[in-house]
């Protein structure tokens, strides 16, 4: 020990105290910066959800009009009810609601355009189902077309200059007369889920997209789950530690980070180009998503297998079980909750994946829901993309609503995963 310590450092010196205060201040700075960063992330999430809800909630209701439709036998042939002039029937109906409007083609068209373009098909389907209605007057509730729907929801401001408005003064006046007659209603918009896609926002729904996504996910699960588990078990429990298994491991980790659009290129070139599979079908979408989900499932399964303590393996091996009996009889069941959690999270990712589905053509405009995985269809995320690209105003709120539906599915899946994790969590 030297004597250099004779001049003891003075902890109470003012210089030191000032330094200490400065250090405390910079600590406070770092702390507030961190808090600020987290607040920004939170604010963005709130802004995201808030803007979706504030634009999307309009799409959860749809303005309807109650009309008395006279099914004029002159306009519908009884032997072929599907060929009637239903447009004229609706025009007549609207004319009877506005008896003072001049019998002028342009004016009449204006009146008919209050109703959704799909109204005539609704009445046609009704008549086809029950031809006995011909000649009767029936009371039906039909959706309004998008501009009037927007007007009813207060999204069109009558105070804006007329030339910047989608509805002119007389059209708004027409609508107000209907509103005063109390034939306008705004019920829940079940069509959003029960209709397939349409060019008209008021008729467009997600049925085709939801079924398309479900088929694609089913195919994805059927392929990626068994193959992923098989690969993970082999790599974790059986593979010798050598160059080849190292290569496979590096390969899987890299595959997990390959951009999704590249998988789309793969699907397009291989499945559609080389194997001649059809475009736009959920089956091919599911195949492509399966290739993307595979690394996620393999990595999650390996983690779950790794978490099973070696003592269990040793115990089973010790009573003379073969390695495979140990793995399939003891290790795999114990690891199953973890594997399922990882799989659900992987599938949730696949459900939100858009780019690869665009490349294999799942953004086609298809107005009927697919009945098998081999029919052309869209998927939820690609439907969102299509609607986001559509110029009609009504599709803005539809897009937000579709996103809310997609997020609901995702949250449900993740909630199931979290539930599984908590329920079966085991501390070794």
């Amino acid at each position: 020990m030297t004597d250099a310590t004779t001049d003891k450092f003075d902890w109470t010196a003012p210089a030191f105290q000032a330094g200490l205060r400065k250090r405390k201040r910079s600590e406070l700075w770092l702390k507030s910066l961190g808090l600020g960063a987290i607040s920004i992330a939170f604010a963005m999430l709130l802004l995201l959800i808030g803007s979706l809800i504030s634009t999307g909630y309009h799409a959860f209701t749809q303005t309807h009009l109650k009309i008395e439709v006279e099914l004029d036998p002159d306009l519908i042939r009884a032997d072929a009810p599907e060929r009637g002039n239903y447009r004229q029937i609706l025009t007549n109906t609207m004319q009877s609601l506005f008896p003072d409007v001049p019998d002028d083609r342009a004016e009449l068209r204006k009146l008919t355009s209050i109703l959704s373009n799909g109204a005539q098909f609704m009445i046609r389907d009704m008549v086809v189902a029950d031809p006995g209605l011909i000649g009767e007057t029936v009371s039906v509730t039909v959706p309004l077309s998008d501009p009037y729907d927007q007007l009813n929801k207060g999204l069109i401001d009558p105070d804006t200059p007329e030339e910047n408005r989608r509805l002119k003064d007389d059209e708004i006046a027409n609508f107000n007369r209907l509103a005063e007659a109390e034939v306008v209603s705004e019920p829940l918009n079940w069509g959003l889920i029960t209709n397939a896609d349409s060019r008209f926002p008021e008729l467009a729904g997600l049925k085709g997209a939801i079924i398309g996504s479900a088929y694609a996910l089913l195919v994805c699960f059927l392929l990626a789950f068994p193959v992923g588990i098989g690969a993970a078990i082999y790599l974790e429990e059986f593979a010798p530690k050598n160059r080849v298994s190292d290569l496979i491991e590096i390969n899987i980790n890299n595959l997990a980070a390959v951009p999704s659009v590249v998988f789309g290129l793969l699907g397009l070139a291989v499945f559609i180009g080389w194997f001649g599979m059809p475009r736009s079908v959920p089956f091919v979408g599911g195949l492509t998503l399966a290739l993307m989900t595979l690394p996620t499932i393999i990595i999650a399964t390996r983690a779950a297998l790794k978490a099973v303590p070696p003592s269990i393996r040793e115990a089973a091996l010790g009573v003379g079980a073969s390695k495979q009996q140990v793995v399939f009889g003891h290790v795999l069941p114990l690891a199953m909750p973890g594997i399922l959690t990882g799989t659900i999270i992987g599938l949730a990712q696949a459900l939100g994946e858009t780019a690869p589905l665009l490349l294999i053509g799942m953004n086609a405009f298809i107005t009927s829901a697919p009945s098998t995985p081999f029919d052309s269809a869209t998927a939820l995320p690609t439907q969102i993309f299509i609607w986001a690209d559509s110029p009609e105003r009504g599709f803005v709120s539809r897009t937000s609503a579709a996103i809310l539906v997609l997020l609901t599915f995702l949250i449900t899946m993740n909630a199931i995963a979290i539930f599984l994790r908590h329920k079966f969590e085991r501390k070794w």
Partner: protein
Amino acid sequence: MTLIAFLILFVAVVIGYVLNLRAARTLRAGGTAMHSLDGFHGGYAALSVLIPTFFLIVLWLLFQGTVIEMLLKGGLPSGQLDGLGTGEIQLIMAEIRSIAGGRIFGEPEQWKLDAAERLVSLRATSGMLLVAVTAALAALLLYRARRRVSAGFRARQGTEGMVHGLMVACATVAIFVTIGIVASLLFETIRFFNMVPFWDFVLGTSWEPQIPLREDQIAAEGAFGMLPVFLGTLVIATVAMVVATPIGLLSAIYLHEFASHRVRSVVKPVLEILAGVPTVVYGFFAILVIAPAIRSFGSDLGLPIAPNTALAAGSVMGIMLIPFISSFADDALGAVPRSLRDGSLAVGATSAETVLKVLFPAAIPGIVGGILLAVSRAIGETMIVVMAAGLIAKMTINPLDSVTTVTVQIVTLLIGDTAFDSPKTLAAFALGMVLFLMTLVINVAALRIVRKYREIYD
């Protein structure tokens, strides 16, 4: 027909299992000492029927389309396809297919109707053949497996060998996916370079893929120089990283060093939500909220702002990457041994000094790895830029300008009907190759760094 084939397979598997199980049981009941348990005899039969037959069906389904098309083309009256481009041939084939499917538009020529009829009969024959071959193979395998049942037969080893083989096959699927990616990209890219010179693509500064589809169409001569597209990608990725890196790192530092257990348990799941939002949603968010906000902010300042600014797309991408970076950094800080933290605190360092001067430097490799992975994501991210970035390629690094990216071009070039023989379509694959190579290099580097780092403290 396919369904019937799968049904036959299923029934054969069940029969095989039951037959062998029973046979083994009978032998055992007769007092023979068996080498393997009865269940393994059953499993042996089931698997030895399942594996070959299943692969037969899959291969058949994969290749029947191509084979039928070849047969169909070969059977067309000679001269009909002479002098036509692949696109036109594809159109004719599509027409024949739709006639065969019962959707007839207009009045097709007689030879097309004939071809459609042949297509129908070819398909029927193929289906029939598939069922016959499946049934024959399954029966043969059943018979072979049943013959094997005996006291000395090592059914367990046999079964386990097959299971082992299946697992190895599963593990190699991942390799085949990579090979598939590389092969498909390489194949189409080489075809692209046969049409467009390699150096024009790599060093060209003009990207105008709108080439004339027909001779009489007036359009610019296509230009395929990737530099402006590449530059646009870098601009947007840079904006994204400038947003995401500080916010992500600071949140990680706060969470790791200052947040109480309760705050952590709230903040981390919320950040995970941000990470779980699909990118198409972020894209819509960009065009719905962020882009208009930036535009109106810019016009308030009097700045000229393009409608699809790189700033809007990039900053939304940055928001998407915040949770990615913060969770990586949090993990990396958490991997630094607690003893280092204690050592620093014990000489009187504040928490801030500890985290900045000891933990952070020690965690740098892990954090850098995470940031690199985020960069690779930013480069490969598609939907946000497809929706919020521009389509026109410009040689600019101004984030207020509208730029396009590699992924945007891939998607726009391939959306809609595509024929595999125009440079426009093939250019997408060449860009895909560039994207794949870029992200591959970054990923390999990042994963290597992260792995090395984990080894230090494990």
